């Protein structure tokens, strides 16, 4: 038997509803219908009056979750797609994110963002917003790349007292399978060495971890040992693990699926060069999506995001310094 990434998300929510009476789910079409991606399938039946269909009012959905959190609940809000959180932006960054600092009352809400590109989804159903939310003080931003992380990080995220932006990658939903949901369980804020190596470090997260591993496998055929670091959470960022990896390899490539200006890859490189400049044997490199909206046609989409090929190319350049 195998579990998929989306199974893990569903299982985590089931466990949370079972174990913690403060948890409830709120989102469009998540009750009877089980959600656009079926991440809440069956939960409304199992937990009557704990799973609610929301109106198409993302801003109010978050505002309402904040209010419920003030009164002691732990809401999990599903955005139908990460892209639609743009209309909830204000409540997320100004209400939820500032509340603890301003008042001392924590806001333990979890916002599930079905993120990232899939072929044929286009500019408004493909966005990766982790680098936007991570800019804001007061938010924790999680980007699980494995089935077990999808499970444990949702459990851990809901247990945190802070508002959590949980970026789940749609491409991984059904494509990514594991034998068990119970893999290696690291605390939030700690990165993982997904694949050890010694010639260069690829620091990445979410779906790009798998593309990076593929690239590493290809380069292994030429004798290169590429280390792949999975950030797991982009805020907080585990600089220690990144620096330790760069110390081993001397070379850094940061890979992300988001737009190329700023974002996670820039933050990784700025932090590493500030604190670990002497560890670097070559200029640190970045690989992101292109600087256009995510295109609709699969042929364009495939050329818009980093791929094993483009990661290999970037690594070869990095290794040639």
């Amino acid at each position: 038997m195998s579990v998929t990434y989306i199974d893990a998300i569903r299982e985590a929510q089931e466990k949370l509803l079972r174990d913690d009476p403060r948890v409830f789910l709120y989102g469009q079409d998540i009750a009877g219908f089980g959600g656009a991606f079926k991440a809440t399938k069956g939960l409304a039946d199992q937990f009557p009056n704990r799973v609610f269909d929301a109106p198409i009012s993302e801003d109010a959905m978050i505002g309402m979750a904040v209010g419920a959190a003030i009164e002691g609940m732990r809401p999990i809000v599903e955005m139908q797609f990460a892209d639609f959180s743009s209309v909830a932006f204000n409540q997320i960054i100004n209400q939820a994110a500032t509340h603890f600092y301003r008042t001392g009352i924590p806001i333990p809400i979890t916002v599930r963002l079905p993120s990232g590109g899939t072929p044929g989804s286009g500019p408004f159903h493909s966005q990766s917003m982790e680098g936007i939310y991570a800019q804001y003080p007061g938010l924790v931003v999680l980007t699980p790349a494995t089935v077990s992380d999808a499970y444990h990080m949702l459990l851990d995220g809901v247990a945190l007292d802070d508002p959590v932006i949980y970026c789940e990658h749609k491409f991984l939903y059904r494509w990514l399978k594991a034998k068990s949901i119970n893999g290696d369980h690291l605390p939030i804020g700690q990165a993982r060495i997904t694949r050890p190596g010694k010639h260069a470090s690829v620091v990445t997260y979410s779906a790009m971890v798998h593309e990076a591993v593929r690239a590493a496998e290809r380069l292994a055929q030429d004798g290169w040992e590429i280390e792949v670091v999975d950030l797991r959470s982009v805020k907080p960022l585990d600089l220690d693990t990144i620096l330790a990896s760069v110390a081993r390899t001397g070379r850094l490539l940061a890979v992300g699926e988001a737009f190329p200006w700023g974002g996670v890859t820039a933050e990784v490189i700025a932090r590493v060069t500030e604190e670990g400049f002497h560890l670097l044997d070559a200029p640190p490199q970045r690989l992101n999506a292109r600087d256009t909206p995510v295109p609709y046609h699969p042929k364009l989409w495939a050329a818009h995001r980093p791929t094993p090929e483009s990661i290999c190319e970037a690594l070869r350049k990095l290794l040639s310094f």
Partner: protein
Amino acid sequence: MLRARILENKLSSLYKAGKIVGGVYLGRGQEAVSASLGTSLIQGTDFFAPLIRDQAGRTAFGEPLIDCTRTYLGSVLGPMRGRDGNIHRGRPSMGMPAMISHLGAQVPVVAGMLFAKRLQGTLAGRVGATCIGDGATSTGAFHEGINLAAIEKLPLVVVVANNQFAYSTPNSRQFACVDLIEKARGYGIGGFSVDGTDLLASASVISEAVRRAREGGGPQMVVARLLRLSGHGEHDDGSYVTTDIRSGHYGRDCIEVAMRQLVENGFASVDEIIKWQEQIVEEVQRAVAQAQQEPVPDPYHEDWTALATRFPLSQPITPSNAQ
């Protein structure tokens, strides 16, 4: 509307055959309303911001079939050149904006197009229209957009297709008023209700709303009651729609109603309708065939820039058509 139905049936079977790029969202059951709006508008003068279930309105407004098939079949010659898809397609320069997915967001855009015409002194006789679902009335964008249009007294027509569901979510989880039309008064705009499965009724009510807007009566809202006769998209079987609802009054097929109305009122004979049908099937086939043999987008020929300006600039620019 017949054209739209036949075209969409074709898209549906192409989807099932795995030939479509992206998703397929149909307007089945909503053609009477959408077509009534499209035919009430004048291409070249009016603005029309179609939404996902407006194939019939698009066709009636004058969108060529080939724009549709090119987009669904991934031809690079389509209006969006592979950059955006299917239901998002538009031709803003021809008065038909290209929607973004975020529901409600087109309402202020149409208002702005009209506002521009007022400033340019060419608003008279013009209207702008958009359709929207029951679910989208819950968005802040809808509220702000209509309110802004009402303040500016713009000739905006918003047709709310209340198909009783937003994806799987029933009206009871979407709003608490008895009928959505009660919102019109709260915005200080005109309001009309109509049975959206009835073509003649829809055409007369919607054209009246368009007329009022055109004549300076400010924004108008039409709420059409009907039922989506397909899933939310073709990936969805719509099993949350109970048989009760399906077999109720709004479960009837507006196309069948329309045919009957056309025949009964002597607008067309059954033979004529069958002939139209055959013609349309052929047109659709042609448009599909043409799009299928056209090139798909090529990443190597993409310019991969989202900006109209080509930086770096060697000197400060001066506006191109400032006077």
